[in-house]
């Protein structure tokens, strides 16, 4: 049955994350943007509450039914993740990206790591210890959308590999305890030569050279990483040699990177929706309270706000569909690309509409201009709008035997 009603549990998750967003994130939001940093004390306190950014936070629904009924467990981890992410994006996207936890490094370790690696790398995130981060390093100065163009090399040596290369735009790359780094063992092999390594902080030859200054999400750490003859032991090759041998004729490290997008794109789309919703709610409230109730401004405001409402709803439903498909075990690459393309675009559009309504006062003292600056990146990272269109188009043409 088609339904857009949240279950009690889903509603609960939404409320709790919203509480966190409103009471913990929003109070430091503008200041963090100004500083270009999330205060350490805040991170320590939040970490103690056990709040982390982890895509695996959401287990299955373990509702215990009354006696006599069969226990039904429907996976809803992806739906819960997008519901929670929307609230985090509503709170503050830069702070959301800075929450302790494995972050984007989680999915590759989770899906491709050996049991030993999973234990070693994923057990360090504890509320009883200082906050820690994981990171995911794929992008290079000359390889953004074109992942197969990565040039970081991994040369096989006794006991491990030596990495050489540079990564840019890595969220939490400087503070992370470990980073999943994509490198190639042989460029001539193309994608088949890609490998994912876990490089730990403090490894000789691994350094964070600088942090980027950005248009928005300024409180989020965006790092440049350098690998200079950086030795990484065999135990840190994600999945081990066996993983790549077993998949020699099938997917490779390249697949490791690509597969996770089907799960992470809806989450990123949700954050963008949260941004749009934050701008929309703020502006709707302000216009209702302080602006004239007639005349041309009023008509313009009604039009823009009605449009914004639907922008947000459409983006959310596309995102829920992508998450739902993942939950029920169906392929969702097309839906993941569609929701990311749509949400990435409307996030900026809605903020622009809201800023138009605010007028000159929107220049300062109102959160909407920050949301506008934050929104733009959501149409770029995790796959640009153009890439999402390409993925969507490929999915559409595939049954017709045409590769676009």
């Amino acid at each position, binding site marked *: 049955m088609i339904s857009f009603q949240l279950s009690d549990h889903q509603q609960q998750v939404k409320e709790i994350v919203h509480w966190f967003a409103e009471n913990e994130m929003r109070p430091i939001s503008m200041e963090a943007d100004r500083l270009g940093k999330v205060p350490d004390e805040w991170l320590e306190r939040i970490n103690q509450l056990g709040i982390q950014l982890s895509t695996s936070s959401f287990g299955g629904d373990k509702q215990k039914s009354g006696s006599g009924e069969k226990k039904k467990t429907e996976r809803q981890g992806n739906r819960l993740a997008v519901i929670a992410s929307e609230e985090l994006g509503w709170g503050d996207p830069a702070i959301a990206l800075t929450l302790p936890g494995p972050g984007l490094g989680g999915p590759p370790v989770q899906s491709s790591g050996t049991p030993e690696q999973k234990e070693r790398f994923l057990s360090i995130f504890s509320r009883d210890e200082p906050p820690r981060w994981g990171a995911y390093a794929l992008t290079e100065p000359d390889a953004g959308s074109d992942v197969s163009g990565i040039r970081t090399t991994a040369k096989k040596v006794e006991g491990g590999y030596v990495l050489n290369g540079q990564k840019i735009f890595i969220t939490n790359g400087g503070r992370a305890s470990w980073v999943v780094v994509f490198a190639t063992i042989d460029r001539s092999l193309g994608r088949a030569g890609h490998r994912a390594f876990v490089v730990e902080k403090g490894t000789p030859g691994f350094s964070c050279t600088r942090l980027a200054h950005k248009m928005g999400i300024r409180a989020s750490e965006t790092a440049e990483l350098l690998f200079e003859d950086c030795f990484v032991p065999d135990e840190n090759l994600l999945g081990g040699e066996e993983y790549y041998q077993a998949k020699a004729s099938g997917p490779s490290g390249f697949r490791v990177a690509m597969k996770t997008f089907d799960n992470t794109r809806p989450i990123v789309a949700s954050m963008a929706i949260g941004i749009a919703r934050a701008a929309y709610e703020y502006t709707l409230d302000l216009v209702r309270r302080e602006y004239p109730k*007639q005349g041309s401004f009023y008509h313009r405001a009604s039009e823009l706000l009605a449009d914004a409402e639907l922008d947000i709803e459409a983006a959310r439903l596309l995102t829920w569909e992508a998450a739902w498909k993942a939950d029920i075990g169906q392929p969702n690459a097309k839906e993941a690309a569609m929701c990311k393309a749509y949400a990435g675009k409307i996030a900026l559009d809605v903020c*622009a509409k809201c800023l138009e309504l605010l007028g000159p006062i929107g220049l*300062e003292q109102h959160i909407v201009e920050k949301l506008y600056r934050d929104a*733009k990146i959501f149409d770029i990272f995790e796959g640009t709008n153009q890439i999402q269109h390409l993925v969507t188009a490929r999915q559409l043409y595939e049954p017709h035997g045409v590769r676009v």
Partner: protein
Amino acid sequence: MVSFQPTEDEQAFVDLARDFAKERIRPLARECEQEGRVHPELVKKIEEVGFASLELPESWGGLEMPLISQVQILEALSSGDLGVVQGLPGAGDAASLFRFIPDHPLLASYKEAGQKGTWPTVAFLHAAEGEIPQGVTITSADETGYVLNGTSQPVRLAAFADYLLVSAVDSQGETLLLWLDRQKGNRWQAEAGDYRLGLLASGCARIRFDEEKISSDQVLAKGDEAKDLLAKALRRIQVLEASKEIGLMDAAVSYVTEYTAQRKAFGQEIAKFQGVSFTLAGMAIETQAMRHLVLRAAADIDGDKGEVAASSTLGRVHRALRFVSDSGVQLLGGHGYVQEFPVEKWMRDAEAQTLLYGREGELLIQRGEQLLDRKVPIEV
């Protein structure tokens, strides 16, 4: 006769402006933004070349150029950096009003002050517009004057201004144009703010009046005369602002063309991907179309055409400005979002510009009402 050929003089000025933009303005753009003002040396050079007095009356020593010439020159200058152009001290928007009343006795001391080659800064507080309360109220204080009170919305150049041109509507509904001069004892506060979005070198500030008494001899014009002057000045301002926006759009098109012609991905220059080239083409088409609309509005105003689609042109150019500056960032991908490349600044400046100079919707509606010969009713 239809022609798109600039005059030789115009071409010379435009070439000069373009070189200036590239050699002097663009390299200093980020620094000016960080410092919150345009470098005095750069200001001096711009004044020396005459770019600061294009709109001012000849009787004041200004160039009193037709709009058709100015829009070309301003576009060229702004292609260096819109943020710098918007931070240039001087008469600012008020110049478009001075053009109509160059001999007004109230303006004599300002005119005098500008004779040394540097025009003191004037901020234009346009509080007489629209349905939205502007924050500043003006009330009659017996027969001898008025009282200004309250805090305005952010106004460009207000942080640097020693003079204010104020348009307001009093409680009787009468339009007023006022001239305020710090040296003559008028007081106001330019409130510093936490500006982050864009045009950070343009001296944006809210203007606060604390029950400031204005005598009636500070009134430049009132009633229908004020309304008429204001309308004439505003449409010039709208066209001039639009031309600056074309400059930013032009910069984005050039920059992105060069970047995408060199940047490689998937084994070739990204320009070869239709997703990229078609977007760039879209940017170029929109920029050219808007450029023409601005030229058209300028020509119409110079030719004393009665009703000119000035406000709607500005509204359309705002929309195009956002599209082009946003596409500029998008086509650079992740690099477009970081401060190593100019496009993220251009996108922020562009958005700030659209906030300062009229809501797109309202600008269009103003023209629509003229076309339909009817205002959208305000139910009382």
